[in-house]
């Protein structure tokens, strides 16, 4: 592809030392009274404790939340101040919808690779249970006008124009601002376009639950998760679910699409709203050595993409489909070179439309600018320790969860085989965005 320049060698590499998160919890359950700051601080403190970072001045901490109150303008810095890291650790907030956590990791690893910093933490947090609630647009305008007024009469006047309905709060919604369609409705359209069957989606969901349950049982998350508010495991996980149970659920998205579209997306093969937080420690080799910390994996390279979804030219969640071929080409890799595919399961069908697109010759030629089909993903390499359908998806926390899992997977595989192992991370996001990255055993 003409747009792909060979990678400019970075001065040095950035490494993943380890990760930590709190168990993810379905909205309205265990974390009802937990704020974003409390959850991120808990994830951070667990990471600090695990790697003995008390009092340490790190290069920086970056992260964010998707559903964020305006008072949390310095959410990550406030979390750092509430942690046992040195108060001299700088921090900043990042926001890129569901790709927030991965984008934060891309930002801090680039600084490490450039030599601007030696160590960093990236992550994210989100709560639907404690989401900020705004006032209606008419009430907001009245409040602002009253605030600017100089006399009592002028302060009261704006409120006389309000109607009772204007006093109702405006809850955050998952609708795309430019289309008015929820993310589920958007994905239902993409699913219909690609003709993805219900059974195939339920199978992705089933594997996610079984794989995540097996990983928990095998102790894979023992050094990746800190209990929080009495929760020790992701409470969305249904290790005993079956295709039969999943097949009984009623579709919830795409119910009003015109024929021949058939509703296929259920609460079982769509990710539930979830609360949680995650954090990942990155470092230069020198810093890790100096602190006597082994590294798990190298954060090799990343590519972000965006698609033109507003008028239906491309599906809302299809940006990673565009990013991955560019990322792999730049690094001289093909799909067969990837040992682990960590594809965020916003919906089971997101994974399947991604694969279907890469296998479609015509699409790859016209939309991706490739010579032919990008290729087929070996399903046995997909989300081998589960993903968002089972764990849940606290928007900004998902990137950190996936990076830590991918790093551990490649480290274990390399130790087992004596050969380098690679993972591909792909996260789709609202706004037609997507972030992808390659992680390789150190």
């Amino acid at each position: 592809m003409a747009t792909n320049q060979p990678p400019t060698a970075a001065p040095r590499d950035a490494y993943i030392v380890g990760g930590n998160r709190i168990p993810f919890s379905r909205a309205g359950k265990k974390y009802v009274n937990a704020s974003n700051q409390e959850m991120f601080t808990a994830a951070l403190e667990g990471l600090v404790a695990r790697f003995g970072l008390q009092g340490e001045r790190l290069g920086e901490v970056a992260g964010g939340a998707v559903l964020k109150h305006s008072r949390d303008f310095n959410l990550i810095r406030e979390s750092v101040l509430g942690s046992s890291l040195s108060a001299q650790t700088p921090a900043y907030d990042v926001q890129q919808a569901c790709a927030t956590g991965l984008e934060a990791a891309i930002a801090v690893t680039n600084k490490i690779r450039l030599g601007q910093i030696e160590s960093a933490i990236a992550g994210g947090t989100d709560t639907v249970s404690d989401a900020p609630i705004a006032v209606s647009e008419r009430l907001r305008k009245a409040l602002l006008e009253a605030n600017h007024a100089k006399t009592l009469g002028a302060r009261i006047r704006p409120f006389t124009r309000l109607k009772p309905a204007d006093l109702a709060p405006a809850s955050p919604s998952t609708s795309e601002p430019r289309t008015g369609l929820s993310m589920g409705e958007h994905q239902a359209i993409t699913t219909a376009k690609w003709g993805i069957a219900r059974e195939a989606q339920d199978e992705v969901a089933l594997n996610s639950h079984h794989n995540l349950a097996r990983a928990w049982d095998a102790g894979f998350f023992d050094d990746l998760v800190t209990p929080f508010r009495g929760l020790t495991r992701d409470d969305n996980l249904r290790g005993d679910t079956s295709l039969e149970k999943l097949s009984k659920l009623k579709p919830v998205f795409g119910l009003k699409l015109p024929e021949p579209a058939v509703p296929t997306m259920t609460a079982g093969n769509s990710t539930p709203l979830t609360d949680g937080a995650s954090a990942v420690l990155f470092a230069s080799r020198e810093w890790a050595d100096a602190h006597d910390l082994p590294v798990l994996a190298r954060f090799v390279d990343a590519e972000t993409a965006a698609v033109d979804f507003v008028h239906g030219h491309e599906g809302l969640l299809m940006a990673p489909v565009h990013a991955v071929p560019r990322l792999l080409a730049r690094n001289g890799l093909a799909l067969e070179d990837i040992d682990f595919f960590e594809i965020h399961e916003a919906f089971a069908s997101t994974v399947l439309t991604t694969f279907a697109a890469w296998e479609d010759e015509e699409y790859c030629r016209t939309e991706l600018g490739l010579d032919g089909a990008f290729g087929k993903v070996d399903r046995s390499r997909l989300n081998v320790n589960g993903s968002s359908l089972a764990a849940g998806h606290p928007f900004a926390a998902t990137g950190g969860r996936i990076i830590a899992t991918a790093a551990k997977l490649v480290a274990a595989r390399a130790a087992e085989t004596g050969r380098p192992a690679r993972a591909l991370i792909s996260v789709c996001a609202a706004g037609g965005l997507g972030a992808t990255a390659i992680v390789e055993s150190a």
Partner: protein
Amino acid sequence: MTGGPASDGRRVEDLPGLPGLGGLYVKGAAASATKRPRPGGVTLPAVTYRVPGVATGDPATAARLRAYQDLVGEPASDVLPAGFLHVLVFPVATALMVRGDFPLPLLGMVHLRNAIRMLRPVRLGDVLEVRAWAENPRPHRRGVQVDVVAEADVSGELAWRGVSTYLAKGFQVAGAPGSATAESAEPSEPVEARDFWTPPLPTGRWRLDAGTGRAYGAVSGDRNPIHMSALSAKAFGFPKAIAHGMYTAARALADVGPAHRGEAYEWTVEFFRPVLLPGTVDVAIRRTGGVVHPGERPASGSSYVYDGWRPGKDTRHFTGTVTPLPLPPKE
């Protein structure tokens, strides 16, 4: 009113300013009852109304533009969207339709379609000359359709032209007895087409609350009772208030947006079943023409086609197009 030169056989009558729509509706409503189909058919008044100096630089017009932009989703800008010019000149066209010698009833006419051309950008502060007349009465399956044409010039150059096509049920064109039952005169006759229509996949969903008609009525001045409340709409045979057709079309135009339609564009809309309020409309607003390949840039401006229907049904509300036009050469 003063007389003026004739154009196309029509006598030009100057109005001192934009008439008030409220008064026109009262007059129109009163006169509607007297306008019934008559033997000999429909003869349109050979009159062009002209308002020579419509100023747009006053604070009231600026505030109204801002309210209009907020409501239909246009970005805040001093460039007047084509739909705003439509509401600005609408009173002149309405004044024509409430004349005693305009043969069709203002209330009860069905708005079939609109074709608007924005030929050069109009900005706040520009002074417009507005003209409006009615032409081309022709048979429709259910009566007579007429075009009400309005134009706006800036500095002697045509900047905007809108053709609104209305149906008056049960009327006949002059000299064509029995034409009310004659076959459709227009190849683009939409009535049959909707029977075979199936919706495409949507690209968006509009949730319109019960106050949508009142809100557009406030910025457009078009407070036709069918849009204002369920009660007033029932008086005219609608089960609920219905959304202004031009509001739905304006939202589609805004959705395409200034960056894609350019400064000069054609904007058309054809109306089918009305949108009842409150209600949800599924829309498909799609770029037409060739695929833009990776690494290529689309040709300047893109044409769009849009459709609106009731979610989960094949009840079609409207369809239309937005097509960039070449700008006239700069002098």
